[in-house]
């Protein structure tokens, strides 16, 4: 079987090569940390969770199945770790289950301070503005947007990681984009 770059590093790690595991961590630390920090919205917690993730990956590395992509397997572990943490500390984030929430409801809360669209546009790029809104949408939409665009995964891979049907993943991502567009329109970003 032809092994990809990650799988070669895993083989080396399992043979006791510490440098190989360090290389694997260096390769994924930025994407994993970006995902985690946007999920938990707290840098220190994100650092701890990212470290816990790599620690866990190392301890279960011998259970990795070479038939699957390492990244998908790793992201699933990361996703479960973060979701577990959020469920245990639900007060820190938006509700996980608010089905009928509107974009206005999401952003109107007092603890969210946002500048109006024009000021934001003057101060930051559209990208930063959009990602700022992404940080504030409910978790069930945010997690999928993060998996899709930060981890650069396909709908099928996201479905595998989150254990959701592909149709649900697509619908939620569409819904998230509708929310984001409405917010951009409201803030005059799309005039």
């Amino acid at each position: 079987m032809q092994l990809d770059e990650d799988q070669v590093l895993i083989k080396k790690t399992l043979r006791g090569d510490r440098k190989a595991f360090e290389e694997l961590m260096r390769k994924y630390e930025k994407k994993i940390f970006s995902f985690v920090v946007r999920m938990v919205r707290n840098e220190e917690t994100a650092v701890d969770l990212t470290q816990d993730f790599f620690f866990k990956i190392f301890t279960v590395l011998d259970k990795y199945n070479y038939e699957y992509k390492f990244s998908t397997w790793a992201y699933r572990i990361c996703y479960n770790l973060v979701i577990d943490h959020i469920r245990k500390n639900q007060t820190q984030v938006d509700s996980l289950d608010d089905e009928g929430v509107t974009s206005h409801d999401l952003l109107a809360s007092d603890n969210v301070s946002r500048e109006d669209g024009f000021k934001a546009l003057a101060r930051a790029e559209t990208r930063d503005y959009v990602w700022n809104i992404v940080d504030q949408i409910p978790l069930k939409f945010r997690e999928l947007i993060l998996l899709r665009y930060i981890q650069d995964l396909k709908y099928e891979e996201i479905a595998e990681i989150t254990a959701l049907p592909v149709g649900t993943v697509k619908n939620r991502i569409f819904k998230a984009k509708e929310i984001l567009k409405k917010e951009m329109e409201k803030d005059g970003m799309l005039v």
Partner: protein
Amino acid sequence: MACLSDETLIACNEGSLGAIEAARVRDHLLLCPACRETAAHYRLLERALERPQLAMPPARLVPQVMERLFPAAARITSIAAVAAASFVFLVSWIYIYFDFSSSSLVQALRLTTDGTTGWLAGIIQGITSVYNGAQAVRKALGAMLRILFPAPLGVVAIAVAILGLSLLLALTVFRPRLKKAKRT
């Protein structure tokens, strides 16, 4: 013709529509300014999402994981190994150097063996044979050293042993601590 749904426009931007459906959407966009505008908005959004600014993890992240995974265990085992080796080395050396052949302990043990049976006799015989072995080594080393060096070497040997052990301990215990202190 009715306007296109947001879902269709999003799918069109993502390139996930089939060829026929994509052609139908393109045709509609040519004729409908409202849908064209909405499609442009989604395109802008898609472009912003496709280029996320990744958060920079702190530099300590990976080193801390590595330290958590490897050196702690390694350090404990190396310290234990050094301590055990030092103990064995010092005890053997003291026995050899100070020559306990007239030691009442070993003599007493030898005498005890005669009247003892079973596992205790085995243990005593073991101890005395280790002692005899050490004596033999001592005699051999002593003879060799007397040939090589005319002066008494006991003090020099102790000094070298203590210096070597101190160096070994410093390298295994204090150096990583110094490194860690520098990092923090």
